[in-house]
């Protein structure tokens, strides 16, 4: 009875506050099997914030560094899983940032095993959602852009694109200088909606800078984006509308888009949709209104929009509960009437 493990895939968990230190001790042992089981038990424990505090304060993260360079790929994957759970809490994220675990993680991106790579991407993604961490990861962006071209797996691609978009929101320059716009342009027409969504989000972050806007216009990406405005997935539509909102600020963007007949599409998006839930469409409506405002500065656009003024007026008035949408619609109407 004593020698029988209840769950053979997990190491027995010591009681109370010995759990975490003892399991980490077991991780020092040379047998791979023992390490895998100890890691599985640790992953179970890490859902409790107290354990995370213990791990972080006990200085066990340095051991994770050796584990990340272990020979067995499943050990590496499990360690990534562990780090993932750590990033779920603020102390974990801070500890990961201040520890020296980022170089081994970036080395794992070149790993042979795809689950390891996915795990590493997951950790970096969760980390990048913290602004301070996104700043720290900016130095990794060149490597990530390189991986963008090489990576095959869809899940890893989604995570990679998401990480790049978070980092680019802090500073778009590194991604832009590494040919970001053209790489992302390829991804915009991928068959998976997740990849399209993340690529469009990253492109939105890149098009904040003037250089990015120019590259989007030159790269013949505008037809693709206009096509994405009519995509099935709401998030893809929202992100595409965001990119267009930024790009239309440039005069060349306005001209190119007017040739593509973008105004009816945008007006259709702004129209009140009774079936859909208005709250989730808020971002889409806001971005479309801003895009229309930019278009109204061009004379051709203004002509077209003058006819459609009632639609916008409806959005700017009292039945609309959301203050932001109302303001955006009022700005658009103002620009159309050239009152400003």
């Amino acid at each position, binding site marked *: 009875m004593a020698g029988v493990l209840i769950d053979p895939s997990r190491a027995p968990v010591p009681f109370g506050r010995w759990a975490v230190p003892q399991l980490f001790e077991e991780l020092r042992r040379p047998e791979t099997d023992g390490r895998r089981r100890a890691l599985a038990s640790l992953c*179970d424990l890490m859902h409790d914030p107290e354990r995370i505090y213990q791990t972080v304060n006990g200085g066990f993260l340095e051991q994770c560094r050796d584990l990340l360079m272990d020979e067995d790929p499943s050990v590496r994957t499990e360690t990534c899983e562990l780090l993932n759970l750590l990033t779920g809490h603020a102390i974990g994220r801070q500890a990961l940032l201040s520890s020296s675990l980022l170089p081994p993680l970036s080395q794992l991106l070149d790993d042979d095993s795809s689950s390891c790579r996915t795990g590493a991407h997951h950790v970096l993604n969760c980390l990048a959602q913290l602004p301070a961490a996104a700043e720290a990861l900016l130095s990794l962006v060149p490597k990530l852009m390189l991986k963008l071209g090489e990576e095959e797996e869809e899940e890893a691609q989604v995570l990679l694109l998401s990480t790049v978009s978070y980092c680019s*929101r802090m500073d778009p320059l590194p991604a832009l200088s590494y040919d970001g716009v053209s790489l992302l342009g390829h991804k915009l027409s991928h068959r998976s909606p997740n990849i399209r969504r993340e690529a469009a989000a990253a492109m*939105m972050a890149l098009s904040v800078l003037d250089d990015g806007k120019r590259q989007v216009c030159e790269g013949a990406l505008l037809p693709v984006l206009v096509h994405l405005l009519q995509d099935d997935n709401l998030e893809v539509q929202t992100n595409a509308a965001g990119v267009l*909102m930024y790009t239309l600020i440039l*005069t060349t963007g306005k001209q190119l888009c007017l040739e593509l007949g973008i105004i009816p599409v945008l007006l259709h998006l702004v129209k009140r949709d009774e079936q859909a839930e208005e709250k989730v469409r808020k*971002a889409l409506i806001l971005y479309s209104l*801003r895009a229309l405002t930019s278009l109204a*500065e061009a004379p051709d656009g203004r002509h077209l929009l003058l006819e459609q003024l009632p639609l916008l007026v409806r959005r700017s008035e009292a039945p609309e509960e959301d203050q932001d949408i109302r303001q955006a619609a009022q700005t658009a109407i103002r620009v159309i009437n050239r009152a400003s």
Partner: protein
Amino acid sequence: MAFVSHSQRDGIYTFSSRPRPVENRSTYREPPSEQTPSNYGNIMYDRRVVRGNTYAQHIIPLTVQPDPAEIQRQQEIRRRAVTRKHAREQFRLKTPEALQGRKHIDVQTELYLEELSDVIVATDIECQTDAFLDKPATPLFIPAKSGKDVETQIEEGELFDFDREVQPVLEVLVGKTIEQSLLEVMEEEELACLRAQQRAFEELRNNELAEVQRLQEQERRHREEKVRRIAEQKEVLKKQRETAEKIAARAYTQQYLADLLPVVFTSLRSHGYFYDPVERDIETNFFPWLMAEVNNSLDKRYVARELLDNVIHDVARKRLERFKELETQSDRSDT
């Protein structure tokens, strides 16, 4: 520590205290500062415990202060014992010392002599048991049957009801699992909440950023437009000025060159550019020939005159020479 209780009931004195271990105290006692933990001493090595024979013990007198008469009596007894001992020592008969060259030896004088020796007579005797014989197996001891045979059997469902007993175990198992999963779900929900908040903020930020950039671009366009218009105006003004200057220059030159034509004709005429051809022909062809012929004929005359001159000159010279010769001849002839 020692709960001393003494109650005086009908004049009888009683004392009782709880048993306590003997404390090790130093000889020169200080008041016990701490109650715990006192070192327990071994009672066997305690100097205060009385040892040995107690028959002839010196009983401690009841009163601490000894009576002075008692002290004197004690001293008297002691002194007398000492003198008695002395006297006994003096009057005891002793064997005189041995003479020189002799030695005293002890001799037995009893009837039966004993051999006195230090060596104790000892003999060795040994004994050995026989080797063990194999013992035959003891027959099983089967006690005689006595009493009644009784049997019992636990049927299913009699000891305990599984469904009822398993409930607490199940509750714990399920409860722990659900607790863990609730933790994980709450974690994910928290993360999702954070992410949703972040996303809402990002949307608003993007919105405002786009508006700001649009206004910036508009401002830039207006500014450029303004600069361009000002430049255009400057160009226009410059062109106007140039045109005015051109017109003024044109008017002046026109006025300056108004009477150019008659002056030109007059000057040409005066320079002889309008000529009569016959006159010109005579001038160009005839006159030079005429002048040349005139020159020729004049030249001929001159040549003739020169010849003549030369002849005359020759003659004159010859005459002169002749005369000079004559002079010399005359001179010579004179002398």
